[in-house]
């Protein structure tokens, strides 16, 4: 990392109930929850910004953040240094992002505006207006620091580059131009069935047997046409694996869960008057979310120190229990509990005796998720995928792009009205679950090739992160010319947006856990934060079994009554 860190300020007091390292969303929520429960909290982050793996970064900070987490840290050897009453174990950085590709086709232009970008590290990500995260924002009071705007539409994509509007509500079905009358009738009847079931209407209850069966079987039983089935499964219930192919499907959705998904979706449509659709996105990017919880924690008395690397773990010599951490400043801080973001690991010292208590504990720390990895791609364009819509979601259901595509690919386009990029530009986030790097990159490329015109710039294809950064200034003029000539070359993709910048990376998945230490999870592969919040609540309950997670207060009650979050029309 950066060698020229500013002098570290000394921290006082030196003992806390809880130390949280990393300001990712789960850590920030935990810090806010703990401080709300009157715990003294020290919240540290080695970075100069909030959000860690959930942050939104400028075009300059983004590559360096990925770089710092893409290879094992060349830190001091994992030696245990004995102290008078505790052992010191150096932290190491776990590589979480595979070697990544960043390509810039218009470096000069982007360089000019690089600070005006807020690129989400964990995109694509949105909120459903009625999902748990919105409830948590309201309940915790963090919503007062955030402002949202509506995602205008959801589309299903195909391999021809067509985007089909997803009719996700009664009004949308009515308005839809691509559905036939029969399809409209069938889809609406299905929605009504679900609503009737949820409302407990007479005669429309879905049987328990059906609820326990796979959702896809239920949809088949209802006689839904393939097109409608695809809408429901992949664009509304946001299912990842191909539900029709038991061989590759690792996560077969049950009817009960499918219905719950639809319930959240339909409750989302129209929940807030200014958001016509189901989905919203925070102004200035997803990183704002972590920051909002941090501000909430600060109000409740947490102490915040950014730019503060943590170098080592302090463990009781005798019983192997956690004591505290050593900061980059050399200061030792002690606490009863410690929460670490997933990039930390503690390598076993080479000469440790097999009977040492940590011998067993350390390797268990921070499990990988067996789900595989998430392939993420970020693209910047100067035109929208849809001329009249700037914020939109596109879903590519399994097998919609190529036969071996077994998982859904989702793409979120965000425009400058959400303050994530300069006016006239658009940021596209793509993600898909994958088993390995090659498969992940293939998924990302297939979407990019379908929707975008990728300029044939010789050196851009294999350009690694460092090259692009250093090359940027030098080749600025040539690149600009290359860009303009390629534009004049006529648009081969008949109106497809032209790619001007892209970043592709494969992110590891980790499980949040409380073992010897508490480690938070990496951003998951989902579109919203529901599962992450579930895990976070679980972590909190394990750390503080006797405390309530954001107890209802009179003020938060008022907030809920208003049902109010700042939404711009």
């Amino acid at each position, binding site marked *: 990392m950066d060698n020229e860190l500013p002098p570290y300020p000394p921290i006082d007091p030196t003992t806390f109930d809880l130390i949280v390292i990393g300001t990712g969303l789960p850590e920030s929520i935990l810090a806010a929850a703990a401080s709300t429960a009157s715990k003294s909290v020290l919240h540290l982050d080695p970075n100069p910004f909030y959000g860690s793996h959930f942050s939104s970064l400028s075009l300059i900070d983004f590559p360096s953040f990925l770089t710092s987490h893409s290879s094992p840290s060349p830190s001091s050897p994992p030696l245990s240094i004995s102290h008078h009453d505790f052992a010191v174990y150096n932290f190491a950085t776990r590589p979480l992002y595979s070697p990544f590709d960043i390509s810039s086709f218009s470096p000069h232009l982007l360089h000019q505006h690089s600070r005006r970008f807020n690129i989400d590290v964990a995109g694509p990500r949105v909120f459903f207006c009625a999902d748990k995260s919105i409830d948590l924002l309201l309940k915790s009071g963090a919503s007062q620091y955030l402002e949202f705007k509506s995602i205008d539409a959801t589309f299903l994509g195909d391999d021809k580059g067509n985007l089909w509007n997803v009719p996700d509500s009664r009004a949308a079905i*009515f308005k839809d131009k691509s559905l036939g009358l*029969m399809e*409209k009738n069938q889809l609406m009847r299905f929605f009504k069935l679900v609503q009737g079931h949820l409302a407990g209407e007479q005669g429309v209850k879905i049987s328990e047997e059906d609820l326990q069966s796979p959702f896809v079987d239920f949809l088949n039983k209802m006689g839904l046409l393939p097109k409608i089935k695809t809408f429901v499964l992949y664009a509304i219930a946001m299912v990842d694996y191909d539900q029709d192919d038991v061989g590759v499907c690792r996560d077969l959705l049950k009817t009960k869960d499918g219905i719950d998904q639809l319930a959240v979706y339909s409750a989302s449509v129209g929940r807030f008057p200014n958001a016509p659709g189901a989905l919203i996105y925070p102004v200035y990017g997803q990183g704002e979310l972590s920051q909002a919880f941090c501000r909430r924690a600060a109000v409740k008395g947490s102490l915040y120190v950014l730019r503060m690397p943590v170098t080592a773990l302090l463990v009781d010599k005798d019983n192997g229990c956690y004591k505290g951490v050593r900061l980059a400043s050399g200061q030792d801080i002690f606490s009863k509990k410690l929460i670490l973001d997933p990039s930390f690991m503690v390598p076993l010292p080479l000469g440790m005796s097999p009977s040492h208590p940590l011998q067993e504990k350390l390797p268990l720390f921070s499990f990988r998720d067996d789900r595989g990895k998430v392939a993420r791609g970020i693209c910047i364009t100067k035109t929208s995928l849809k001329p009249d819509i700037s914020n939109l979601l596109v879903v590519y259901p399994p097998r919609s792009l190529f036969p071996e595509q077994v998982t859904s690919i989702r793409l979120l386009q965000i425009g400058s009205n959400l303050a994530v990029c300069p006016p006239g530009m658009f940021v596209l986030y793509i993600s898909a679950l994958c088993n390995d790097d090659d498969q992940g990159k293939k998924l990302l490329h297939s979407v990019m090739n379908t929707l975008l015109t990728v300029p044939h710039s010789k050196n851009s294809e294999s350009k690694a992160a460092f090259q692009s950064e250093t090359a940027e200034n030098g080749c600025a003029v040539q690149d600009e010319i290359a860009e303009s000539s390629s534009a004049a070359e006529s648009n081969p993709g008949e109106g497809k947006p032209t790619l001007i910048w892209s970043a592709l990376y494969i992110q590891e998945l980790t499980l949040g856990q409380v073992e010897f230490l508490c480690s938070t999870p990496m951003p998951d592969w989902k579109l919203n934060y529901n599962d992450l919040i579930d895990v976070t609540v679980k972590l909190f309950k394990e750390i503080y079994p006797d405390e309530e997670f954001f107890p209802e207060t009179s003020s938060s009650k008022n907030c809920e009554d208003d049902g109010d979050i700042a939404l711009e029309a």
Partner: protein
Amino acid sequence: MHGRPRKVPKPEDEAASAAKAQKLRALQTQFFSYHHNKIYTKEAIELSAKLLEINPESYTAWNYRKLAVEHYLSQPESNPDSVRSILDEELRVVESALRQNFKSYGAWHHRKWVVSKGHSSIDHELRLLDKFQRADSRNFHAWNYRRFVRELMNRSEQDELKYTENMIYTNFSNYSAWHNRSVLLSTLLEKKAEGFLSKENVLPEEYEFIHQAIFTDPDDQSGWFYHLWLLDQTVKVDSPLLVTSWPAHGSDVLLVVDRFHKVCGLSPFTTLHSDSGSFPMVLYFNQSVEGVSSSTVTVESGSNKSEDIIWKPLSVNNSQAAQVWVAHLTFPTSELNSSVEVSVGHSEGITSTRGFQYSYPSKFSFKVHVQPIERDSSQGSVAESVLWREENFKVYEARSDESIPIVFFDQLRIRNDPEPTASNWRAEALAKEIECFRELLSLMDCKIGKLTLARLLMAYDAMSSCANKLVHSEEVLELYSDLMKLDPSHYQYYKDEHCLVLLQEMISNRESLLKHCFQYTDPVSSTIHNPICLRLNNLSLSRMGAFEKLLWVQILDLSHNELQSIEGLEAMQLLSCLSLRNNKLRSFTALDPLRKLKSLRVLDISYNQIGEHSIDTTRYLCSSPLSHSVGSEWNKDETVISDGALIDYWEAFFIFKELNLKQLDIAGNAIADEKFKSILVKVMPTLKRLDGELLG
């Protein structure tokens, strides 16, 4: 605004509303004293504002404010600024009243009144409307006011159409928005605005649009309402048309003044007996028209001078518009054969009630043969009596070459086809709709879908059948039968529609019509040659219809049905014998159409329910002697009966005093006691037989 459950008021709410009422009463008392004394001081006006804020429904208070405004505006010292501030204050009061209840008729009306004065900012009105329509997009008061504002500010219909469309896209369960769309489209079509030149171009797109709503949610009624409007627009021809006439085109009418004369050669369908040598000529239009007169209808015939012919509308409520018009032609025995040519609408003047000109002039002609009197007819008529006995009726066996009435209608129809090319798109549109709703019904059971399909099929048959064939009647009958089972609460409506289709089917072709044609033979004098009797008895008809094809009928047997009304029967001007025995007629008001049947001599209304029901709901639909329209006809002094009886039986009196009946059967009705019968005899001096008894 919609779908909110009603809550039982809590005790504290009730106390609060009692306190509010108390306060309101005090305010009201004070207000009335100001109002009666014409006090328009600042204090008095403020009080009325306070009253209206609590209760926007107080009409008197709104009117008081209007008076106050007029009072101040008429002051000599008033200037534009003071006028504006007075009117602005009114707008403010209305706005706060609307906040209290934005469905207040009085408040909206007051606002219109103020804004009409033309001193207020229209932009502000639009902003206010936007606010109200966001709060409740279906509020028809706001929509109504919007139309008013639109007209005032001359905003284009196209812009409003766009606005309405957006409202529909936000939520298509909005009857007010659909209604506004229909109003705007009608205006644009009438104006022939660009892109709205003809229905042919506009309606198919509208069908396409409404399908989206209907198919997305067939349970929502607003879409169906709009579809019904579209269907009406498709079927309806603006300018009036002549549908049928009597005598029909090309027919030979034999006018016999002597009943006992043997008639040969000519069909009994067109043989008439007349004491006076005259018979009614009937014009049956497709809609209610005005202006049928000797100048708009010319009749060329030897003995009848066009200008002497008096055309009368057959309307039960005495209005000057009617679908059926009648005139009497007289043929003296001096002229044995004459041909008559009638031209309708060759000069302007016949207009529909909606103001459209009759623009397809038509001509028809017929021949009249007069059979001179050979014997004194008075003898025959004394003995005249009709016995509605089964054995007196024999199935009429028509000769194969004999023309029967339905043929004539076909001829008239063909010649009258108004827009041979235009009806193409109409039939095409209907065919498309039929296909569409068949598909919907294949997906789901849907009552309104079935009803719509039935209506479409009937409309299609009516439009496309030059040969008078009902292609889809079986399917329609089945649909209505289904609906009667599916939707018992509207049973009677479906039953009525079912009957109308059944009737259309029965008289649509020669074979089926002949099954119902009988010849009445008197057991006493078997030589009498009577006209054809149409027997539609025992069919469980709840409604009578198809009158336009039954103008020729002189003897009609509707006994043993379920009729509650005989609406439309007044068109059958030739009717001389009518049996309504064993039906469900509940009152004399239901018999109102009979008043127009001047030829009626024999009537059987026995075994109905007249007098059984204390409340006569038909009275609300029919004209009564107390309504203004017929009041002029009512001359109490003419009556030969006592005031007391008049009060008890005025409905009967009203019907029977205009009939020249010779024979009446009324037994089996609750009302028919001796007292009533004695009154009937007084009212109808012409009556010879009452309930089978010869009167002295």
